[in-house]
């Protein structure tokens, strides 16, 4: 990778971290509603994977999706606007934190029901095979907690039976909400579950973005060539709670501190300096640039208008809904509120 690539990768990871930190503040100020699941600590996974995917590779993930949205190429402005529920949000303010997508970037969400997107991912891969898009791979992320739900097993089984080009990526951050893997999963390594489906699999460390890039490139090309699925378990860690409302009774500060010592941004920074790709000053410049971009994104989001009231009835269906019906709905349902 050339210097420019390193700096872009570094800047992206810093932007993701800053977006999350600003989101936490905006949440506490009441400007972001609902649930907010921060990606802080896991940045190497999304940046590592998206930086080696091909444009035809589809990305689909669960609800901890801000990092994925950003690294898939959605402008931080539109991510921030979505968090604030504004019209310029990537889902027009109708999706929120857990439901971000941009089909033009081949980023298919942002799915909030644990594991439900797993069979959908298998179907997207089927769609590519069916239509002769032979060099496309669907990359589907989920947490280790999602591997205990039926959807996971139905999806994995189908992908194997139908020989679908899916790279299943388990972002194992050890806790399903507040429950450790040991207390929720019958096997201690998630990759073992792939064994049950005769599916090739790996378990890799998830804090070093350069190592992730290397592993994922290899696996991705294998899936592209062979056509069948592969499961990759990536060991990572989230520094913040499951969501903003997490009392974090299930772990102590020492544990978090231990993981903060292997911070993915710190690791990449050290790597860049050790390899003499760029200087300390150049990286600081990237930090400042990232801060400027995120400041601008927050400003943009705050000044973006709320969706107009008419948007309430938009996009329920693709086909125009009969006027009589909408008229009825507008006239009567609004009275009942």
């Amino acid at each position, binding site marked *: 990778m050339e210097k420019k690539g390193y700096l872009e990768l570094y800047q992206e990871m810093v932007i993701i971290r800053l977006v999350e930190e600003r989101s936490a503040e905006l949440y506490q100020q009441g400007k972001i509603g609902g649930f907010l699941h921060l990606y802080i600590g896991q940045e190497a996974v999304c940046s590592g994977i998206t930086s080696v995917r091909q444009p035809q590779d589809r990305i689909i993930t669960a609800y901890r999706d801000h990092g994925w949205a950003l690294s898939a190429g959605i402008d931080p402005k539109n991510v921030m606007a979505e968090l604030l529920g504004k019209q310029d949000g990537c889902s027009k303010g109708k999706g929120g934190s857990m*439901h971000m997508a941009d089909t033009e970037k081949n980023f298919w969400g942002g799915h909030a029901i644990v594991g439900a997107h797993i069979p959908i991912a298998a179907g997207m891969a089927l769609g590519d095979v069916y239509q002769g898009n032979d060099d496309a791979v669907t990359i589907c992320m989920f947490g280790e907690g999602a591997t205990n739900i039926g959807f996971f097993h139905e999806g994995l089984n189908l992908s194997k039976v139908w020989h679908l080009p899916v790279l299943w990526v388990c972002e194992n951050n050890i806790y399903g909400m507040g429950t450790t893997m040991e207390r929720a999963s019958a096997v201690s390594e998630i990759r073992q579950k792939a064994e049950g489906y005769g599916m090739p699999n790996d378990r890799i460390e998830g804090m070093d973005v350069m190592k992730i890039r290397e592993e994922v490139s290899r696996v991705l090309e294998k899936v592209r060539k062979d056509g069948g699925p592969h499961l990759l378990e990536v060991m990572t860690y989230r520094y913040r709670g499951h969501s903003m409302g997490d009392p974090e009774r299930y772990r102590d500060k020492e544990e978090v501190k231990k993981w903060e010592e292997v911070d993915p941004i710190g690791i990449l920074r050290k790597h860049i300096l050790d390899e003499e790709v760029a200087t300390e000053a150049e990286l600081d410049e990237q930090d400042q640039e990232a801060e400027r971009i995120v400041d601008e994104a927050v400003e943009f989001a705050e000044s973006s208008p709320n969706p107009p009231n008419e948007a309430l009835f938009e996009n329920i269906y693709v086909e125009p809904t009969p006027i009589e019906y909408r008229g009825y709905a507008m006239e009567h349902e609004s009275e009942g509120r």
Partner: protein
Amino acid sequence: MSRMTMREAVSKALWEEMERDEKVFIQGEEVGIWGGTYAVTKGFYDHFGEKRVRDTPIAEAAIVGSAIGAALTGLRPVAELMTINFAFVAMDHIVNEAAKLHYMFGGQFKLPLVIRAVSGGGRQLGATHSQTPDAIFAHFPGLKVVSPGTPADAKGLLKSAIRIDDPVLFIENATLYQTKGEVPDDKDYLEPIGKSKVQREGDDVTIVAYSKMVPAALEAADMLAEDGIEAEVVDLRSLRPLDMEPIIKSFKRTNRAVVAEEGWRSYGVGSEVSARIYELAFDYVDAPVKRVAQAEVPLPYNAELEQLALPQTEDIYHAAKEVIYG
């Protein structure tokens, strides 16, 4: 026009749409080599091949979920659920994914998806396999719920369902598969989704029905005619969107209505339709709207008990008499 059974009409619609558009494919339990558990896709596997007639594992979440994924890539899947009772296993994908994705992502996602499912009781399959839970699915905005009562509508509505870009749950009643009717031969014969249809004209009482209750209502109307009562039968055809216009138009003339459905009365189709009649035409009400529905029990296996629980033609006939004579 050709005379055919509803099974043949459904099959023909599928066949013609698959011939017309390479993007249309079907998947489900035993749709392929077996030929469909209700023989709707008999001969499809040999003609269209395994790529387009896909046998799946017995895993409804995978069947519907992967159909959603394929639809997102631009294909037009028809996912078959052997019976609607198994839709509960795929409930999340139907209501949380199919019904939501277009809206929730600001219109970016399109789901040209049809889920076909067989509904209804009366075949001694016991409580778990005999339900008519159609109304549950009609509760969710974002999903279209269609259920034909005649072979012609089965063809025209299914073809429309396959061609539109919205997710449609297409409900077929198993005991209607053998009913016969005239069906247009036109390969582009399309019936609009979200439009109720007057299946019989009359000025004395409005009978609202859909699916299996349509032939029952028409039969009841014939019985009423012998008593000198002319019933108008309005077929909903689509539970969502629900088109009240022909119903209200009819009701303003007859001032009396019966709503018939095979499912349970509580929170059902009749509840919705009668509430809307009161909301939209209260000044025209001459008698309380009567609902004909299934007894509020899980359906028993015993044939006589089962029929006792299911709504019959006579129930519609008597309900019509009651709204007229009190």
